[in-house]
């Protein structure tokens, strides 16, 4: 062995290696790497990147997904989406659902994490209970919560009746239906933001807490000035992942309302993609909605990354 270091053991810094070393290719490494990485790369290429590009192509066609005939119609699908009134209701539903789901699950998740980070008896059990719904299938939660929200015999109505309040008709009113979907989603997924924030809280610098206490800082001020700044990285990570997840919820909507009432009462962009492609047999239009959805996600994520960068 004449090489100064063992090849391949460098971390990503290997790219900044002197030219001399990086030029010497290790064929044993290359052969093995091909065998190890190729299967996964083929799957990613075939079922993630190929369809991503193909989806863009499909969006310029008029196409019934079960027929071989596609008619090229240029930007017509996009023009139709941007001029159709339903699109704006769907965009509004998506925006309301996403904003409430992201802010709600992050704020409540953080509050629960702060609560269960304290020395309280039985906190382990409560942590388990709070996280449990996260491992249950969204479809199962959706089906069960249909009955939980049943205006005649459900749990919500039972609790409201105890306080002498009549239950709203969750399924017959667009606003209440959207409320129900959002609540169900947040309830199911709170466990995720909760455990991530809890881990971050437990990894924070305890000496800063003590210093703040010794200086007599108020709890409120301490939260904003000492604790929250330390959770910045986690908050950024959650804002990206929770946004992506809530933007693309399908199972809960499909089992609870099928996008209704009144056709599009609780439809979001992803539900519209499904509805147009597989129910209305307009795959080209569905693909156009999917492209719009992907671009919106991409733009929001880039803005988030940019904001994070400028803050650092």
């Amino acid at each position: 062995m004449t090489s100064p270091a063992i090849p391949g053991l460098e971390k990503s810094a290997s790219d900044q290696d002197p030219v001399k070393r990086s030029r010497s290719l290790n064929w044993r490494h290359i052969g093995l790497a091909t065998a190890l990485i190729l299967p996964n790369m083929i799957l990613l290429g075939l079922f993630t990147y190929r369809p991503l590009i193909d989806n863009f192509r499909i969006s310029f066609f008029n196409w019934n997904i079960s027929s071989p005939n596609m008619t090229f119609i240029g930007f017509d699908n996009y023009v139709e989406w941007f001029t159709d009134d339903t699109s704006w209701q769907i965009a509004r539903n998506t925006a309301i659902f996403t904003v409430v789901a992201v802010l709600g699950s992050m704020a409540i998740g953080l509050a629960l994490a702060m609560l269960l980070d304290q020395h309280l008896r039985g906190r382990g059990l409560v942590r388990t209970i709070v996280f449990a719904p996260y491992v249950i299938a969204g479809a199962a939660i959706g089906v069960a919560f249909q009955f939980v929200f049943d205006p005649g015999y459900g749990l919500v109505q039972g609790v409201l009746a105890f306080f002498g309040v009549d239950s709203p008709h969750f399924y017959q009113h667009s606003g209440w239906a959207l409320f129900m979907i959002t609540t169900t989603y947040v309830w199911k997924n709170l466990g995720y933001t909760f455990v991530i924030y809890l881990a971050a809280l437990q990894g924070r610098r305890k000496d800063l807490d003590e210093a703040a206490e010794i200086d007599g800082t108020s709890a409120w001020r301490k939260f904003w000035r000492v604790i929250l700044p330390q959770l910045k990285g986690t908050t950024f990570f959650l804002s990206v992942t929770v946004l992506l997840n809530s933007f693309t919820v399908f199972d809960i909507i499909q089992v609870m309302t099928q996008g209704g009432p009144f056709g599009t009462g609780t439809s979001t962009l992803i539900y519209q993609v499904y509805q147009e492609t597989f129910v209305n047999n307009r795959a080209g239009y569905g693909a156009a909605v999917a492209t719009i959805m992907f671009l919106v996600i991409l733009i929001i994520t880039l803005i988030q990354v940019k904001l994070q960068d400028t803050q650092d």
Partner: protein
Amino acid sequence: MTMTDDTKPVLPPVPGTSPEGAPELTAAQRRRAGSRHQAFEGGTGGKLLGYVGMAAAVLLFFVPLYFIAMTSLKTHGDIYSDPISWFPNPFAPENYSYVLSELRFDRYLRNSIIITSILTVIEVSLGVMCAYGFSFLRFPGRNLLFLLVIASLMVPNQVTVISNYALVASWGWRNTFQGIIVPLAAVAFGTFLMRNHFLSLPKEVMEAAELDGTGFFRTLFRVVLPMSWPTLIAFTLITVVNEWNQYLWPFLMSDTDKVAPLPIGLTQLQDNEGLTNWGPVMAGTVLTAVPMLIVFLILQKQMIKGLTAGAVKG
């Protein structure tokens, strides 16, 4: 986004027991610090508030689960009682036997087990192989290819379903296990998780293996994996839960109980029994949920470790 160190316990130590960076205090400071020790514990008042909060959390999360479980054990008349009853009277376990034998829910259960186990084996193998390549081997284009793996996390499945559906249907793979399994088998998050872990392993061990000319399989099974069990278990658990709960793709791929997994079976059950026969529907829900709840209750620390590993700066 770096991974938390494996040598640390699954959840970081209980506050107050950590020795790191404890500041030197004067006697007066120590006296003041002694009175309040935690984030928001302003003495007994704060503690009381904490317990009230915990009680609220339990009510919010436990009561709906309890209500669902109880409804699955109620008779038709008991379900439609006003006000709601908190205990089944009489107990009606026949909801379960009806769902399993009459509605053939056992088939969905079998399909779920088949799909989840095959996908987990494939994904964990692919993830470990891929991560090994990205961590220990040097080859041109490595960083670019790894970027492609990570970037795929930003592409929601829902954007790719139309084209994938057309492709897989043209192969005649609808209503087959391979039609559900193969398009879901690529691994992005797991590759990321395992690679981060592999890079944290002591370099010397890998150097020694390389110098001895130890082959790939021997290095993997004798050197790398024995130092990686916690991360590997976390990766496996996340995969099991994800695939068990998978919805959109199996929903599009299956029309009958031939290959459909439980969440799809539940939708079909709901369509057939409608909103009139809640007992069996709830029994189906519980059957779908319980396997993952059991896995979670037994291995919650490992599972949470996997979720937090990619998120929290170590």
